[in-house]
């Protein structure tokens, strides 16, 4: 058996064993443009949500300026920035909303579009998406 024949198997094993690398968080904070960049990103993100008929109904009674401030704090803290999230925890916020898998994904797609629009590099986008994906069980179907 030539080495190339077992290469896919070896790589799959490698990929399965490899833990997700710990995000170099201060680097990520910089890559997102620090607090000002994150604030801009969250504004673009909320504008995308406002135009998305799949999920906009969940935000009809929302104080958008407050949400923008809390999201900016939360993402800033999450990526290692010098902010403190002052809102309630994710489970409390989303309990009773009955957010579906598809709605959660739609929200993330709006963030992807916003990150593309803000010119955030693919590597930084993936790091942020991986951090947010961990919140899935704290948001969906509560």
């Amino acid at each position, binding site marked *: 058996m030539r080495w*190339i*024949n077992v*290469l*896919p*198997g070896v*790589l*799959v094993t490698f*990929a*399965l064993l*490899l833990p*997700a*690398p710990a*995000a170099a968080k201060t680097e990520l904070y910089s890559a997102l443009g620090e607090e000002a960049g994150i604030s801009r990103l969250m504004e673009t993100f909320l504008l995308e949500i406002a135009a998305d008929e*799949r999920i906009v109904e969940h935000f009809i009674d929302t104080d958008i300026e407050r949400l923008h401030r809390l999201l900016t704090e939360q993402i800033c803290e999450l990526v290692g920035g010098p902010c403190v999230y002052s809102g309630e925890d994710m489970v409390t916020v989303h309990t009773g909303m009955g957010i*579906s*898998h*598809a*709605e959660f*994904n*739609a929200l*993330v*797609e709006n963030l*992807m579009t916003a990150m593309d629009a803000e010119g955030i590099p*693919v*590597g*930084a986008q*993936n*790091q942020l*998406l*991986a951090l947010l*994906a961990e919140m*899935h*069980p704290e948001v969906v179907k509560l």
Partner: protein
Amino acid sequence: MHTNKFVGVALAGLALAVVQPVYADQGRFIATGAATTIDGAGGGGIVPWATLSSYAEEGQWGATASLTEVNVDDFALSVSAASLTFDNRFEFSIARQRFDLSTIGGELEQDIIGVKTRLYGDLIYGDLPQISAGIQYKKNRRFDLPSAVGAVDDSGLDYYVSAAKAWLDGPFHRTWLANVTLRATRANQTGLLGFGGDQNDDYKLMTEAAVGMFINRHWAVGMEYKQKPNNLSFADEQHWRDYFVAYFPTKSVALVAAYADLGSIAGLDAQEGIYVSLQATF
């Protein structure tokens, strides 16, 4: 003559790529529906993955239609396939394969009906992989040649279990996907040369695997490996592999190009060539 088909597939892909998606029920991320394999199931090119075709999430329907051309030294395989997925839970697929024995002369044809169900987990979320199981019913539309080379049956069932996992932030801060599939099969050359043979007529458990890296949300590169049984004494059957580039311009279209190494087929060694597949998702 196959060059024309490739050009046709590529042009059709471009035409579809510029069509604005108008479908509401596409609740999963782009590329998570993967492509269509030669046996019609959602997956890569030669390995069915634990992913379900289309972008249907819970409570949603989705469908795909695809055309695939594989052109190796002495053979050409054409596949038309379609699938229907419900609830990100059940995938139903049909495929018709036409295998042109360019050098030997003649052709083989096979129909495949498949069903796959997601048993556990999610490709993206959580630490554990998404696990699916599937069954494929394969039927030769003509059995003269398979019978002449020692195949026992003109139809057969394949059973498989697949596990797939995506890492959003994998090595190089890229999104990676790995899939392992275990298949119980009696098929000769995936059924194109019938089922069971003079050398072995029992089910064999075969390993198939795929690994891929997304350069960004629209482009992925990767490889696949497919182990196959060796049931017929008239010719040695070998494993297959491919190295692919996949392009997902929108959720409506997937285009896959690959280098395929299909080993020895019907006594003709080193069958290598180009794989092209176009998938439309609805």
